Structures are given as C-alpha cells and as structure tokens.
C-alpha cells in the first residue's frame, strides 16, 4: 500500500517506508512503467531543480528503491 502522503507498507515483508514528495512522484511514475530517462525529464519539468542535481538524486533514489526490492534492474 502507498498513500498519497508517501507512506508505504509492504504487506509481504511487514516493512513500512516514508517517501518525500519528490520520491513519491518518482515511484508513481515507476508504477506507470515510465523509463528512467523519461522520469528525469518529468522531475526537471515539474520541480525547480538543476538537471545535474536531479540526475544525481534520481540515481541515488533509484538505488535505494532497488535495495528495498521495488524494482529489479
């Protein structure tokens, strides 16, 4: 389960997570099978952020999403 304030509960593992607003937006895009390049475009378009910062933070974020097992590659 993932609510609109970024709180996530994994019913399989019992773990709970909190996403920041930007994190939530990215996860929603991932849920719609958006590619990583496209996600970066969305982030830069929707938020006040420099492309380099957005790209670095997205890579970090995707790594942590991968580490909790929400995405595989």
């Amino acid at each position, binding site marked *: *389960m993932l*609510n609109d*304030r*970024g*709180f996530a*509960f994994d019913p399989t593992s019992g773990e*709970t997570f*909190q996403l920041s607003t930007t994190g939530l937006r990215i996860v929603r895009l991932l849920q719609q099978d958006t590619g990583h390049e496209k996600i970066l475009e969305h982030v830069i378009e929707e938020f006040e952020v420099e492309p380099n910062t957005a790209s670095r933070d997205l890579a970090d974020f995707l790594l942590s999403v991968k580490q909790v097992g929400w995405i595989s590659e």
Partner: protein
Amino acid sequence: MNPPRLILSGLHRGENPQPGAGLIKSIRAQFPGAFIIGLVYDAMESGIYMVDGPDQVYAMPYPTSGAQAYFRRLDEILALSPADILIPTLDAEIELLVHLEEEITRRGLRCVLPDKLTLQRRSKANLTELANLCDVAVPDTQPIYDLSGAYAVSRGLEFPLMVKGQYYDAKKVQHEGELAAAVSRLAAEWGAPVILQKCVDGPEFNALGLGDGKGGLVGLCCIRKTILSDKGKGLGGITINDPRLTDLCERLVRELKWNGPFEVELILDEKRGEYFLIEINPRFPAWVDFPSQCGANFAGALVRRLLDGVWPASLPTCPAGHFYLRHQIEVHGHVNQIAELAGTYA
C-alpha cells in the same frame, strides 16, 4: 465549567515505561470529559494506541533541538487543538522548559514547574550536597565529563558501580570495560556529565509526592519495590507506612520548597538500618496511576491545582498493604495510524 483540555507526553509503556499513559488514566478518572492531547517523539509509543488513550496525538521535536523548535511546533499544535494545561512528564522536557514559564503562560497554558535553581539542586550531579544539607544518607555520587574522569573516579569508588545518564537511564557496571561502554553510550544520548554512583545493596523504595511550592506536601505515597526487572525497573510494589521514610521526604521537600510532582528513589541499607537517597526525579513516575486506585489521585490533584490556582486539600495517605503489579498487554493499532504520524511534515 468546561472539561479541561490537557497536553501531556511520555506515552510509552514498553520496557522503560513512562508516566503519560498512567496520567491519562488518573485524569480521566477524576475528569471524565477531559480532552487529552498527547505529544510523542515516536509513532511507536504504545500509549498512543491504548483504550481511552489520548484524543489527539502530535509528533514533537526532541528537547535537545531547543526551546525555539519546541514552541514553534507547540504553536502549530495549539492552532489545531487548543488546550489549557501542559504537563511535561520527561526529565529532558522539564530541563528545557524550566525557565520558560512565561513562554508557556503566554500561550494560555497553565503548567506547574520547579524553578531552575531548585531543579539543579536535585540533579544527580548535585545530589550529595542536598542530601548532606537535609541529613540524608547518600551513596558516593560523582559527575564525570569524560572517560579519563570515569576511570579516575571509579578507582575511588570501586566496582560494581551505577553509571547514570544526566536525565535518564542507568547501567550497573562490573569492570572498566563495561564502564567505558556505558559512559560513552550515556554521554552520547544524554550529554555530559555522566554520573557515577556507588552501589548500595538492599531493598528499593520509591516515594511519589506533590510539593506545594512552599515546603509542604499535598500528598505522598511510599512503596517498596517487590519485583525488579533485570534493568532495575519496579515491576511490582507495595504501599508502606514508615515514618522515617515520610520524614525523610518531608525534609527534602521542605528544603527544596518543591513545586509539583516528584519521585524519590531510595535503597535501604539493612545493615545500617538507613535509607540512602539515590535520585529525585522532577516529575511523575510511571506508576502514577497506582495510588489513584488506592484513593489518592496525584494527577487529578495537579489538574485541580491548575484549574483553580490553588492546591486542593491534602490527598489521603495510601494505607499500607496495597500492591501493584506491572501488567503488560498488547495494544492494537493499524498501519494507517503510523502513516498519520509519519508524513505530517511540511
């Protein structure tokens, strides 16, 4: 008169239980219509989810973040849930708020607090001086500021030793290795100084009281701890009536002119037949609701004082022979409630 609206904290009832849940129970017993707002530091504080628990719960910054952060958050909370009374229940909160009564009253909140000097006089670091003044026995107690100080003091005191955080937590240590670990951990969590205290062997006693701020007592309830957890927490206690113990507490309160709730911790040295003063806590203990069930509602008396501006008549003495046992049961919550507290920032 409208039912009182209160803010209180310390809702956890796990391994290291805090007084908040007991306070809620006592207050509801005397003021059934009270609206109670719980301040929490973690969504996992068990009292949030108790039956007849707080009506509303808000997350707070740690006291170590300072008064500015505390009051900024309190203002946000008051805008959502107006209140008349504040009952801080944790030592670190009291240390933070002690000279800020004006800030509290400015927000329309009533609160009973000791003054800063009195609070310092009963601190673990100054306990020996106070005990000597009141002619109360006290184990050798010394504040230390770093590891080398701890080693030096430990040589004079001999192991085993009690190592105590300045506001909270304690550990019994048997040798220098354990001493180093305990000092580092307690200093990291509660800051310097860390307190070293010589161990006294014997049965443990606690007294819960309310000082009237003029040297007198509004109420006092003395217990002997009957069951100790391996961390030294009282899992059970029985009311007693020992005039020596009462007299000792009266001397301390008279000297301090203590205002509000307190808990005195003592150990009886059976060989010498003498009570040793271990600590004076500037707040209600976790077992605050037990005396209420024997007819002496300390929390209710404090709320009465805050509503009326004067202390109510003295509380009845709990007759000897009543006992409590700490009874842990499971409270129920849903992950949605955690979600409420986890995502409320910005």
